């Protein structure tokens, strides 16, 4: 058990290397098997995970460049645990639903490498390694979009790569400076996150460092106004690329905020709280309105992702247990729901080779199973209670209410706009008469698609009805982080705000 994290990180990559030896005909089955084993491994991790311990578990430590404090340092806590499971789960589902025939061997191997980088980002505790995994995750995605995308794929792929890459370069500068600060303060080099947590960074330095990390994370999330790469990437990416991009890669950015920005720079986080919240509100409303104006089904979902990520970040910056736990839960639920929605768009794209809503209409009578699953996912996306979407959204908003009620109200308009664009999408594509002849003979979901989608539907229902096990585990680690933030805070204003955010009606 002590090496389970290393196994989780490197198993898919190793299996991917071996995949070169597998014949083309059986590579899909091979990929599904590998990702299923990986998923089971991550479930085992959850099973042996001690939920009463909010700290890092299964820690692995090997000196790498000890003189400069760069080590191979792994660990998992409640915050990262479920994101790991999300990554392995979505990879498995995406491979099950894979319908591409062209160069499938390369594709499956690329996806397995991508899985390594995703899991790596979430389990690594050494910041240099974190940066390495963070950047490495770009390459498989670049390849997926560039090689299997649609007509304008090169533009989208390069835009995706350069945009996110330039953001992370700033983050690298921040990392190096932070390492230097640590050395300055303690006399030893360390890039271990838990070490950095212990360091009180001077306020001015915090502001700069927060900014550097912010750009890196904000582009990944993506936050307004750094979001324009996302619609292109989704527009051109193949289904499997969109699913993984929306479900997992975006979460790296929001994970970064929880893992780095808040605990490392508590004062700066509080200092920049209102500007960040304003960006979030703009994101929520702005992206929702763009989504409403789209003609292309996939673009609607792409923009809805941006809108939902706005609530995620808002919840993170609520600076209290409800908000942050809620936002992490919302990351998971958004991963499941947006992954499923992109997959559903892929289903219809495979059949009709178009994503424009005007080319559909009346699909509910032709493809009832498809329409049902789509409807369920849509309701989850809208945040209907007892689906997975509600809990995170409610907790994030309720958490942020303590910071500022006007902003919460504004961000809450997202739930109205969300209903608007989603219902309009559903109306245009599924309701009405079947007007196009091509649509009259469409086949409903086949066994492969059903086996990819039904687990997602099940999760939407189960986590909506019984979210407690996940929430409790996340919450323990979040509370620990909040205590850390409070201890580290330099300024009285920060402490005051943390106090206010974590108070219910006068009681701490």
């Amino acid at each position, binding site marked *: 058990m002590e090496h389970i994290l290393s196994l989780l990180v490197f198993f898919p990559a190793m299996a991917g290397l071996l995949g070169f030896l597998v014949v083309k005909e059986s590579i899909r089955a091979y990929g599904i098997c590998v990702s299923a084993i990986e998923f089971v491994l991550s479930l085992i991790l959850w099973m042996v995970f001690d939920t009463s311990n909010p700290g890092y578990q299964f820690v692995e430590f090997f000196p790498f460049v000890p003189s400069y404090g760069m080590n191979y340092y792994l660990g998992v806590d409640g915050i990262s645990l479920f994101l790991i499971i999300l990554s392995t789960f979505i990879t498995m589902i995406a491979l099950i639903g894979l319908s591409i025939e062209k160069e499938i061997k390369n594709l499956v191997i690329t996806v397995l490498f991508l899985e390594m980088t995703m899991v790596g980002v979430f389990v690594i505790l050494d910041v240099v390694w974190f940066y390495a995994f963070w950047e490495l995750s770009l390459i498989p995605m670049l390849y997926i979009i560039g090689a299997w995308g649609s007509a304008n794929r090169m533009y989208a792929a390069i835009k995706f790569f350069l945009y996110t890459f330039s953001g992370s370069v700033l983050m690298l500068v921040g990392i190096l400076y932070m390492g230097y600060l640590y050395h300055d303060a303690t006399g030893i080099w360390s890039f271990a996150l838990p070490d950095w947590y212990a360091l009180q960074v001077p306020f001015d330095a915090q502001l700069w460092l927060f900014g550097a990390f912010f750009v890196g994370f904000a582009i990944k999330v993506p936050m307004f106004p750094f979001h324009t790469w996302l619609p292109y990437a989704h527009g051109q990416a193949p289904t499997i690329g969109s699913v993984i991009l929306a479900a997992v890669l975006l979460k790296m950015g929001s994970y970064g905020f929880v893992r780095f920005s808040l605990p490392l720079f508590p004062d700066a986080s509080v200092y920049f709280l209102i500007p960040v919240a304003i960006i979030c509100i703009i994101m929520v409303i702005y992206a929702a309105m763009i989504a409403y104006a789209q003609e292309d089904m996939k673009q609607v979902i792409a923009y809805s992702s941006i809108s939902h990520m706005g609530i995620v970040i808002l919840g993170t910056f609520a600076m209290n247990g409800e908000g942050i736990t809620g936002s992490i839960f919302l990351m998971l639920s958004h991963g499941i729901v947006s992954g499923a929605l992109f997959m559903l768009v892929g289903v219809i794209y495979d059949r009709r080779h178009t994503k424009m809503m005007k080319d559909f209409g009346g699909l509910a009578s032709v493809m009832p199973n498809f329409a049902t699953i789509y409807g369920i996912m849509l309701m989850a996306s809208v945040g209907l209670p007892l689906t997975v979407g509600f809990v995170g959204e409610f907790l994030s908003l309720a958490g942020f209410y303590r910071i500022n009620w006007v902003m919460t109200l504004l961000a809450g308009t997202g739930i109205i706009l969300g209903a608007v664009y989603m*219902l309009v999408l559903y109306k245009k594509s599924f309701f009405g008469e079947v007007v196009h002849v091509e649509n009259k003979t469409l086949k409903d979901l086949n066994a492969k698609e059903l086996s990819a989608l039904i687990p997602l539907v099940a999760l939407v229902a189960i986590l909506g009805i019984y979210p407690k096990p996940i929430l409790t585990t996340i919450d323990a680690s979040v509370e620990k982080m909040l205590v850390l933030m409070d201890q580290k805070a330099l300024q009285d204003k920060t402490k005051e705000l943390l106090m206010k955010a974590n108070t219910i009606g006068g009681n701490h």
Partner: protein
Amino acid sequence: MSIVLAWIVLLPLCSFVLLGAMYLFSITQRRIEQRYFTFVALFSPAVVFVLGLAALRELMLRGHALHYRAYVWLHVGDYRIDMGFLGDKLSLFMVFFITLVSGLIHLYATSYMNKDEGYGKFFAYFHLFTACMLLLVLADGPLMLFIGWEGVGLCSYLLIGFYYQNNANVVAGNKAFIVNRVGDLGFLIGLAMLFFYGQSHDFSYETLALHIGAVPSEILTGIAVALFVGAMGKSAQIPLYVWLPDAMAGPTPVSALIHAATMVTAGVYMVARFHFLYDLVPHVGIFIAYIGALSAFFAALIATKQSDIKKILAYSTMSQLGYMFVSVGLGAYDSALFHVFTHAFFKALLFMGAGAVIVALHHEQDIFKMGEMRRVMPVTYATMLIATLAISGIPPFAGFFSKDEILSVAFGSGHYELWLIGTVTAVLSSYYMFRLFFVVFEGTHASHSEVHDVDWVMKAPLIVLAVGATFAGFLGLPELFGGKHLIGEWLASWRREAFHLSHVVEEILIALNVVAALLGIAIAYRKFRFYDRRVAYKPEGIVYRKFYVDELYDVLFVQSIQRLSRFIAETMDKKLVDRVVMGMSRGFVAAGTRIAWVQNASVRLYAFIMIAGIGAASCYLLAVLR
């Protein structure tokens, strides 16, 4: 034993899943015969009704509320929220009439929806609705209530757009869902405030009621208003009522169950449920009462000019809901709930009677194309007459007692203007209801071809409901008539203060009410008793056009948001935000091209740069080392 509460919710939920799976199987794999659907569709409501009675009996035996906690739903930060069910006098009272009316409507619907392609789907949605509605009333805390609240909204959306091939129905469904979402946002904000200030770690009504006194009063006002915004949406009050008339696009049993008897009263129930909160902020109550009174009057006014039978009934529902809000606003929650109770009977009956007429006339909904239906369908005629008398407030029918009670509360509270609006509305109500009745069932010179009466499966529920519409009022017989106000006693804790009126005043009020109702009937009689169907009726004017509110909302909210969205998508995002980014990247490229000129393979240039560099470095060193 209190687990029965969970089963009341769970059973319809299970039958929803079963019916849904059967339906999907039936249309994709192999056809399942309709009678199997019918069996499930009727079995579950019957059992749920019995379970409801069992819970009621248990409550009476125990004398205190049943409470069943199924499991912990959320456990975050300081909160631990259970999936809990509360069976107290209020919720089981609601369960009683919801399951009763819903059972009858299910029976009716098996005939109404007979041979429909979506038979199974219809009942699946119906059962989901029943489950959500029962969860709404049985919830032990506001968050659970919200689950039911959203669930019934979803079912309403699905059932309004049931015949989705017709675009208008889908638009109506979307409208209902989106307008309700506006209300829900208010409700959610209210919940977030309660969450923050309520100091209740399990977020149940019980602990909220305990701690509510400690909350500052301006916050309480905020919470009360925010929650009421939710009720405005769900119960179709001004200004969020616009979805209800359009919601009539759904099949008639849907209108009867969801948009008349049960879901739309959820707002009233919610306010009554939060009585501990609303008791502390009577000024918000006055606001609610005014909204209610205005909605009642406004809707009644519009109803007088409409010609679609279901729309008239929809406006009438909104109007009656207005009465209920007058009553809850003034703190007489029990009177409001009494009206909810009687209203469920006569309004469901009116819709189902209307549905029978619609079916008999092959889906004709314009009342001026009906006429003389009494000859064709005597049972429907008789039951509709009872319902119409009940809603008009003619004694001894059910609506009389409850409406009279609300008006005496309004009078007794000293808000005479509310009472006046209520009484004027009563004249309008009896007028438009009898206008409908006379035009549809009486009149002259109707020439229908191929009209047939409906079958007994549809008529039987009408008769049962007619009995209810006749006698339900006696459960709340006022003392004046020597009766015992059973409902008032049962819901005694849901009354803020008693308004004592002397018997003389009460008698005068009753007389006035009856006069008001008779006045409305008389006008309707004069104008429409002998309505000649050959004369075309062309309604015109601002009232018929519903005061152009729909058009106004369309311009204000729909079109403006559409335009703004298009502007943001096409201009802002593509031409501004993305262009800046791409401009930056082009800037890099341009700068790169310029600088690349340096590497032009000219050795002389390289040598020059080298020497210049050495020179500059030497100068620098000289300057530094000197």
